[in-house]
């Protein structure tokens, strides 16, 4: 039983702060050999910070750090690696143009005495390793030619079989299909029998409950619960994750919120059976005038791809779009804009011109409405001034380069560019991410005002608060498919998390 074994890794009273903000507060954490340890918590709860301390990425912290009972202090990720700690990050980090075998042995290819790579030995050993994982591919094929899920499995396999005694997996299942998840779990269980300790971070609580022995829950930089997986449930974990009572300053949306009766207004956008490679499966929905439709889901659930399809930046493999009842296939973003669709992507860097003045940023999308051949700079500045005044953009100087504005004000400019001639459908990705409370409220008010003016608005977010603060109706997107619709019923943060 686990009490019999001594921990391979032990952290005591770990505190870590970034510029005065405490990301971890007095956290104790122990990992046993032959254990799969699940880690759950909201974004920013401190899971990643703790794992980066273990993997030697963050080296400045207070508290005790013991490996096999020995006090240790890593000075770099290299030290952690040498101590047998390996981490698989959420983002794929493979070399798609190299062969499978080269990827498996990346950085330590077997060489002969002359320093030449022993290709045949490398291919054979790579094949053997992958076979143990249940992967049957030609080790000499190009990695990039394989499906993304398989690429991710191969990357995980590389780390798992690198001989590490402690393996940290950050969201390993988000890009995997159900059979691939099953293969991963089989491999994890086999490693557990060999005595490897595995940390498994995931938003997918079912996956955690299925594969892990122990679950630890983080909230606001603290460890709030540690329990055997067999003794807990999804509901109990979610409750521990988001907490009860008013500890947060902001509205925490833990209590039920009543969604209004759906409006019977005109359907502005109708999406029918949209599918895209591994991102989206048969997504169908309607967006109505004067309604904010929220689409919630975890990172990588297909939101980003969906928003790009609506704005003509990506083409779906199948499925149709109709605006105001007319079927549309957008050949370009320009076509989507002319059809009355506008998009504010999650990254401001992607949609603003940082080296150009504010007024040029605001006028760029409407230039063809105010001028045919020659520019009308005075009119452009007037329009920009009106928007700057209405949205209270600071400083209120339209000639200033955009790069000199704060993030929240840049986000307002990103909205302002669509508002002079309002579109029929406004698609907002993560509209309040990374903003302070004041700017957040400003954005929320702007969106509500636009709804009152009769726009159809779609808000896509991975933060439940954003969706709950804005939406009249909420769809939940999970691994590329719509799994739940909330309308005219009570909804709360845990209900959303439960559905996702």
């Amino acid at each position: 039983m686990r009490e019999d074994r001594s921990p391979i890794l032990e952290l005591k009273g770990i505190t870590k702060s970034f510029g005065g903000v405490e990301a971890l507060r007095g956290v104790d954490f122990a990992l046993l050999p032959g254990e799969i340890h699940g880690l759950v918590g909201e974004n920013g709860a401190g899971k990643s910070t703790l794992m980066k301390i273990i993997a030697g990425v963050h080296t400045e912290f207070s508290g005790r750090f013991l490996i096999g009972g020995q006090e240790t202090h890593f000075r770099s990720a290299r030290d952690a690696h040498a101590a047998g700690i390996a981490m698989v990050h959420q983002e794929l980090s493979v070399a798609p143009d190299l062969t499978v075998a080269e990827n498996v042995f990346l950085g330590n290819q077997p060489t002969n005495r002359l320093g030449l790579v022993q290709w045949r030995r490398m291919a054979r050993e790579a094949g053997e390793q992958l076979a143990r994982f249940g992967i049957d591919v030609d080790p000499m094929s190009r990695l990039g030619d394989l499906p993304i899920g398989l690429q991710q499995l191969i990357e995980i396999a590389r780390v798992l079989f690198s001989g590490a005694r402690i393996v940290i997996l950050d969201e390993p299942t988000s890009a995997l299909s159900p059979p691939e998840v099953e293969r991963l779990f089989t491999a994890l269980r086999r490693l557990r029998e060999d005595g490897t300790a595995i940390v498994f971070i995931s938003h997918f609580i079912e996956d955690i409950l299925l594969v892990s022995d122990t679950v630890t829950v983080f909230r606001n930089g603290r460890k709030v619960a540690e329990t055997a997986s067999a003794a807990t449930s999804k509901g109990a974990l979610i409750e521990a994750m988001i907490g009860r009572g008013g500890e947060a300053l902001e509205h925490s949306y833990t209590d039920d919120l009543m969604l209004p009766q759906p409006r019977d207004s005109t359907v502005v956008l109708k999406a029918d059976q949209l599918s895209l490679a591994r991102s989206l499966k048969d997504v169908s929905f309607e967006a109505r005038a004067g309604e904010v439709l929220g689409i919630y889901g975890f990172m990588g659930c297909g939101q980003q791809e969906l928003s790009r399809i609506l704005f003509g930046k990506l083409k779906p493999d199948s499925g149709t779009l109709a605006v105001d009842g007319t079927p549309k296939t957008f050949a370009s973003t320009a076509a989507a804009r002319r059809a009355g669709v506008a998009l504010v992507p999650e990254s401001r860097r992607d949609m603003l011109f940082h080296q150009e003045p504010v007024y040029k940023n605001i006028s760029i999308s409407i230039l063809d409405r105010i001028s045919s051949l020659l520019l009308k700079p005075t009119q452009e500045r007037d329009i920009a001034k009106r928007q700057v005044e209405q949205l209270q953009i600071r400083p209120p100087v339209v000639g200033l380069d955009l790069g000199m504005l704060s993030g929240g004000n840049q986000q307002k400019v990103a909205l302002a560019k669509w508002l002079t001639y309002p579109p029929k459908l406004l698609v907002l990705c993560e509209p309040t991410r990374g903003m302070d409370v004041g700017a957040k409220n400003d954005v929320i008010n702007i969106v509500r005002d636009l709804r009152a003016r009769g726009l159809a608005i779609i808000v896509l977010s991975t933060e439940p608060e954003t969706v709950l603060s804005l939406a009249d109706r909420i769809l939940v997107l999970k691994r590329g498919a719509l799994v739940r619709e909330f309308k005219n019923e009570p909804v709360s943060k845990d209900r959303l998390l439960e559905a996702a």
Partner: protein
Amino acid sequence: MASSETAFAEAHRARGLAPFLRSQMRNIAPFLTLIFLSAFFAFASPSFATLDNLGNILTQVSVTGIIAVGLTFVILCAEIDLSIASIANVTGIAVAYFTLQDSYVNIANIPLPGAIAIILSILLCALLGLVNALGLTVIGIPSFIMTLAMMQIAAGISALLVRGQIAYKVPGLITMLGSGSIGGIPWIVIVAAIMLLGGHLVLTYTRFGRYVYMVGGNREAAEYSGLNVKLILGAVMVISAVCSGIGGMLGVAHFGSAQQNEFDTYLLDSIAAVVVGGTSLFGGRGGIGNTIVGLFVLGVLNNGLDHVNIDSFLKILIRGLILLAALIINVYAQRLREKAAE
């Protein structure tokens, strides 16, 4: 309103003079280079700083100037066109090919009326530009590679048209614009000036010009603003080819002959003029004003080196070094500006 003006003034005061100068580095440096070079040659050679020689310099940079107008559009979009000299060459050869040659010229050509010859030649260069545009936007070949292929294609067409021979006659209008003058001013200088001015007006005062700057400044943002980025990129490739074609036709008249490889040096000169002038290789910054300064820097350098007593082989090396210095300034100016913006 008053408050916003104050805020503006404050913002500028806060930035101070030094950051402002740093952000203007790309405009100031080429101009200082021009003044320095002019002063140096004026001091080193009494025949340099004369009105006659100014006329020489203007004439010498005219063909490069015409070609550089279109190239400025391309580089502002953060693309490149390596086929400009080849397209100039093939267009010059084409206009001669469609003109009746003297009997001793041994080319199996197709004589047509002058106006038609000119129109066909312009259509030819526009078509080659369109192929560049389609390769870049529809197929998605990087412009560096696409125009490298076009450089060979245009050179190949040139070779097939003249088959190693030399043609001399071009339509009357082209002869006049290429080698004639009015009131002592060569027509070719006037044409170059008009095209540079036209390019400047388009870039500064039209919607299309704004799009060119925005696409060059941040292509992703331009697409997220609902601009038809591919259409704009395609258009600049065609503009570049047509400017090259006009430069090629007038160049043939200016040199008095149409033959293979006649324009080879113009590729480097045109790119150098645009970049030395301070237009950013990363797109979105610069313009025709910069190109004009760049043209004069190159013109003064080429002309001035002929006025001083230098080993003619050393001149090639010196030109290379000056170009390298300009490229270093170009890249640094970009970095300084980014820092100033932060």
